[in-house]
């Protein structure tokens, strides 16, 4: 499964579906979450996706050129940062202390949270456990990276 592709995020969504009880216990998550994977060359390149969380589930995954137009917030980072995070989740059965979404985004580097306003950004804090659990599903995927 290649990263980043819609298929990869759909596989992640399927992983979440298989662990529905875990997500039920985590509670509602109502947010449109953008993911932007920047090419190493810098902003303006790369790929972007939209994950629509509704209730206990991620209900849709789609590719989009401009997730910031729809998403409540966008998690934006270089390809290498995403790759390292996914590899870390795979290697440890979940992120170690330095590879959780919150850890990686707190200083705004290597991944940053981009939102139209503070309340939208606060959704990232409100739903953090659900989002982390969603990405933890990567431990079950065989992810192929371009390099």
């Amino acid at each position: 499964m290649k990263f980043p592709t819609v298929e990869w995020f759909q596989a992640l969504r399927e992983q979440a579906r298989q662990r529905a009880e875990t997500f039920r216990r985590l509670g509602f998550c109502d947010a449109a979450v953008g993911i932007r994977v920047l090419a190493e060359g810098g902003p303006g390149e790369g790929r972007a996706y939209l994950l629509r969380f509704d209730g206990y589930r991620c209900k849709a995954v789609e590719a989009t050129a401009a997730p910031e137009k729809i998403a409540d917030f966008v998690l934006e980072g270089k390809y290498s940062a995403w790759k390292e995070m996914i590899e870390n989740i795979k290697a440890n059965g979940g992120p170690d202390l330095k590879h959780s979404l919150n850890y990686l985004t707190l200083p705004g580097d290597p991944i940053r949270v981009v939102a139209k306003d503070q309340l939208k950004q606060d959704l990232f804090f409100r739903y953090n456990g659900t989002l982390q659990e969603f990405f933890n599903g990567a431990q079950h995927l065989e992810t192929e990276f371009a390099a």
Partner: protein
Amino acid sequence: MATTTPSIYTFEQQEYIDSVKKGRYDLQWLKDQRPTWGIRAKLKDPERGLTLQDVNAAYAGEPEDAPKLRTMAPRGAVVDPDVPDMGYAYNEKYLVWADNIVPLYEEAVARQWSATRDIPWDELKPLPEDIERSQCQICTLLTEVEMIASDFPAKWLWQMNQHFHEVKMFLCTQAMDEARHLEVFRKRALANGGGLMRCLTGTELFLRTILHAPTYIQGSFLMHVLGEGLVLDIFRGGEFLAQNRIEKEIYRLCMQDEARHVSYGTMHLKYFLEHHPNQESALAEMHALADVAEMGIPGFLTNPFIIEPLAVLMGGGVKHIDRGMEAVRLVWTRMREEYLNRCEIAGLDRRSRTSVPEKPPY
């Protein structure tokens, strides 16, 4: 001498009892008005269950701006004409409401957790003394400050008209959240050999200001927007404070709860300012409060009992306290920026007025 025992029943009650004994029932309630009869609230999302939004949507259940009654009678019910006045002081919507209150309540209920069950306590291992002392100093502080956000809503809850039941219900979830925060930080302090440490006069003074705020909006601003906004950044920074999975889970779960409270506070301030009958004076009042309240922020972020343990944890030991101060600087900058952003959303533009320095002084 024969004595007559006074009956516990009134004349009307006795009359009713006698009728029931004869098999005659009143049944007036079957002929009463039924303003919401036939309403069948539909589940928008069966997986989620029946939400307050579903119920409100089913019978136009939005609260009135200024309900006439001061009772505990539910919105939409038929009420006896001679019901007593409960003595509520908060009878106008703008004094308590926030437009996100209903989904926030549902979210709060759905995202509850247990400090006993959901933290992997069995993984806790001994830590170096400087790290353990730092964690315990921060846990002592958080054990101390978190319960204010239970006490404060509890103080005002009974004064809010029950017509605004969603606000009261949300504040009940907040009180439970904060009880759990006290619990989890007290447990952490006492679970790994470090124990409870020092409580500070400055902290107590700030908590006292919140608890004794003369109005709900003033206390809500101090607590939901300013205080919890600041603590939210500490919880978020918990990613750097955590030395293990236990602490990481604690800070993450508390962060989720705290962000809901801040969200209510921000949107309540917005509603208050937008719907106040004298918007100009309301704005002036809130600016005057913020002018004073912001003076307390440096007291928090220049206190060695607070920032030095933070720096030790963030740096990974007292030897690396300088490195940890980098992260403390980040918390200062982020806290200020997010606070100003939230004020701006609420319609209280503090950017040109705030006295909190943009850059930390160390």
